[in-house]
């Protein structure tokens, strides 16, 4: 490729009649500097030096109004793309083809605009060579067709000349004798009729020789065209080529004198081998055949051109070496065969490449459709999820709002109750103050966490929100308990408190109390009921009040016991005529001197354990109304505390209270 393009540019330079030695393109000197750099780097695909140099060429050509330099910029751009396309992978081939075609079209437009169409036609060589190198023969042919049409349409004889020559060359390479002959003849016709000096300057010797080669040696046409070639060679001072062919014909005609003269002339010319690469070997073979000897196999193997093989074969036949003739003919046939099969391979490759491209295209289109479908599905799914999440969070918020409203209601109730207590008894100021703190603690949690819950989504995670809800619920329960205590105290104080006597079963009361307090147990603490006897025992009492007292005692035990156990036991024998309940824990216990104080209102042993300090006082009040007794067992010293509730088996029942219940 490199060789070819270099050759092409030499040709290009040679075509310009007044080419300066150091500026063969006859362009602006500054532009020529850029062009030289571009030419030096055009094959260097590793760096982008070429792009820079060529860009500078364009820039300078515009600045200096050098139309030729500007056109050359496009020629080089095309050359670069062809070079790149040659090394492109099959996947990149499509893009490379498009790039080359586009660059080619741009060059054509520019060349027409600047009136320098010869550059456009020169550049066919580049594009055509690109297609041959990349084995895309169909494209090369369609390119030549296009060139032919363009040049005919534009009546550009030079373009036509180039197209015909390329076509002939291509067909010659493909061993298509008839087409080669056809285009060569058209070439010659054009040459003989044209007035275009550029064409007239072209040496046609080669064309005549090529044309002669399409005929058999015995054919008159062969002789005719060789003669024309000689004349043309003479006219163009191409004596070497002329002598070479004359020598061959002389050998064939057994004109030995003529042959030797021509042969010596050729061999004495130092440029001979550079013109005909295997020329000397051809003469050696011919010499051997004239001696009627078979040339050495090594010598025969150097002749690789089908034309040469054909000549030697015919020559051998002429001189009676029929074996050699047969051999050379077979060899030529094999060479042609390999060329043809190679060409077939190339066509097949190209065709399958096109098929592959088509298949790839279709696959891509199908994949695009799949992706589009998948995208649509995903979007739909997302929308559904989003709507679901939205609906969920909306209901969640609504529930929370409702809960909050309920809490607020409770708070309002509590405040009302608080107000009542305050109004009822000025002596309860201390109680209220204490209560304020007690109430505000759960209230703080309820209000605070509710506020966090009502914040816009995204502020907290679902886990956190669940945790907050739990805090709200727990503290609401705590607040409810507090409220119950306060209301009870208030009811007791106002005398608005009734004992409803009825039958009560010891074990049932105890078990119910345990059940109601189990959830208050600190983790790791065990609570159980231990009756003295499993036998049921029913007596007259207010079972609900008893249960309330036991719950109070058990709750206190739960509050203070962080490890160990809480035991509720019952006994009928501990104190005769009394049912005794004992609540024993393994908590910190109560100092003996505090035994009575804890039953006073608002007394808390540990100020920082939550509670109203009302519980024990309520227990004692309720118990005394039933003729019962609640006290701290100070004799119990096994660690922890023991509270005792003693209920009379046969209580004294005031008149109104029995009638109320029965």
């Amino acid at each position, binding site marked *: 490729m490199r060789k070819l393009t270099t050759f092409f540019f030499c040709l290009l330079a040679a075509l310009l009649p007044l080419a300066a030695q150091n500026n063969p393109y006859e362009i602006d000197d500054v532009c020529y500097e850029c062009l030289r750099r571009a030419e030096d780097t055009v094959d260097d695909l590793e760096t982008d030096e070429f792009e820079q140099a060529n860009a500078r060429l364009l820039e300078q050509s515009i600045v200096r109004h050098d139309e030729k330099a500007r056109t050359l910029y496009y020629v080089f751009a095309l050359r670069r793309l062809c070079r790149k396309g040659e090394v492109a992978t099959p996947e990149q081939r499509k893009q490379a083809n498009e790039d080359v075609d586009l660059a080619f079209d741009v060059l054509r437009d520019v060349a027409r605009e600047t009136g320098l169409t010869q550059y456009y036609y020169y550049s066919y060589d580049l594009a055509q060579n690109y297609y041959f190198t990349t084995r895309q023969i169909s494209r090369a042919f369609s390119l030549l067709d296009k060139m032919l049409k363009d040049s005919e349409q534009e009546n550009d004889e030079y373009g036509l000349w180039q197209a015909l020559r390329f076509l002939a060359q291509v067909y010659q390479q493909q061993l298509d004798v008839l087409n080669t002959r056809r285009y060569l003849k058209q070439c010659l016709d054009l040459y003989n009729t044209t007035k275009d000096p550029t064409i007239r300057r072209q040496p046609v010797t080669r064309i005549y020789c090529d044309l002669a080669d399409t005929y058999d040696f015995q054919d008159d046409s062969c002789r005719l065209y060789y003669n024309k070639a000689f004349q043309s060679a003479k006219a163009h001072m191409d004596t070497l080529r002329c002598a070479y062919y004359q020598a061959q014909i002389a050998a064939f005609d057994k004109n030995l004198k003529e042959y030797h003269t021509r042969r010596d002339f050729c061999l004495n010319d130092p440029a001979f081998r550079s013109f005909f690469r295997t020329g000397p070997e051809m003469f050696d073979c011919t010499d051997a055949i004239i001696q009627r000897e078979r040339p050495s196999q090594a010598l025969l193997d150097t002749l690789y051109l089908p034309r040469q093989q054909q000549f030697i074969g015919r020559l051998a036949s002429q001189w009676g070496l029929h074996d050699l003739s047969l051999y050379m003919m077979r060899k030529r046939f094999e060479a042609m065969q390999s060329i043809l099969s190679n060409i077939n391979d190339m066509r097949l490759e190209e065709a399958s490449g096109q098929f592959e491209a088509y298949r790839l295209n279709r696959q891509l289109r199908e994949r695009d459709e799949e992706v589009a479908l998948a995208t649509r599905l995903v979007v739909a799914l997302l929308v559904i999820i989003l709507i679901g999440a939205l609906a969920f969070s909306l209901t969640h918020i609504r529930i929370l709002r409702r809960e909050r409203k309920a809490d607020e209601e409770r708070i309002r109730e509590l405040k009302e109750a608080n107000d009542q207590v305050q109004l009822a008894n000025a002596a309860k100021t201390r109680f209220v103050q204490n209560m304020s703190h007690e109430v*505000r603690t759960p209230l703080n949690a309820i209000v605070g966490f509710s506020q*966090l819950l009502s914040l816009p989504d995204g502020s907290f995670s679902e886990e956190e929100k669940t945790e907050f809800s739990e805090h709200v619920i727990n503290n609401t329960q705590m607040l409810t308990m507090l409220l119950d205590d306060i209301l009870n105290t208030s009811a007791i104080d106002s005398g608005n408190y009734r004992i409803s006597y009825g039958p009560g079963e010891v074990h049932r009361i105890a078990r119910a109390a345990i059940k109601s307090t189990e959830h208050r147990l600190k983790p790791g603490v065990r609570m159980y009921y231990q009756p003295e006897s499993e036998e049921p025992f029913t007596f007259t009492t207010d079972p609900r009040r008893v249960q309330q007292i036991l719950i109070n005692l058990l709750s206190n035990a739960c509050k203070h016991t962080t490890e160990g156990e809480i035991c509720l036991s019952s006994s009928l024998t501990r104190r005769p005529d009394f049912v005794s309940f004992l609540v024993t824990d393994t908590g910190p216990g109560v100092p003996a001197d505090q035994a009575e104080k804890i039953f006073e209102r608002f007394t808390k042993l540990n100020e920082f354990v939550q509670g109203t300090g009302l519980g024990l006082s309520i227990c004692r009040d309720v118990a005394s109304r039933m003729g019962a007794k609640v006290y701290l067992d100070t004799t119990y010293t096994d660690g922890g505390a023991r509270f005792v509730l003693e209920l009379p088996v046969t209580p004294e029942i005031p008149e109104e209270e029995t009638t109320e219940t029965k």
Partner: protein
Amino acid sequence: MAPFFEQEYDYSKYNVLAVDDIPLNLLLVKKMLSRFNFEFRTAADGQQALDAVAAKKPDLILLDLMMPGIDGFEVIRRLRANPETADIQIVILSALNSNEDVVKGFNEGANDFIMKPIIMEKLLSCVVTQMQLVAAKNR
């Protein structure tokens, strides 16, 4: 609450110490202030609070009053008595709500007083104000 949640605050270079004997209250305050990205520390009583201040001087203390051992008033008194810690911003967060308690708190040297139950907007606006004061002081 809107202004505090539309605006992004980054107080990550400030240190806040919350003091309360009830863990749930500490959790609540921490969650309410989570948007501000404070370096957040907690203490369960007065002694722990003083220790925490000695370990690293906070920019702001959110202080409960009723605590076992050294109570909130005493904590303020001790911090104000020490020139090293006298300039810390202190906000009382308390369920005590009588006028006497509030006045006493300010007399001891508290910078602000917030009653429980805490209204989030109040707490946040108070904290923003305090942080602006801290920033002004640092400048």
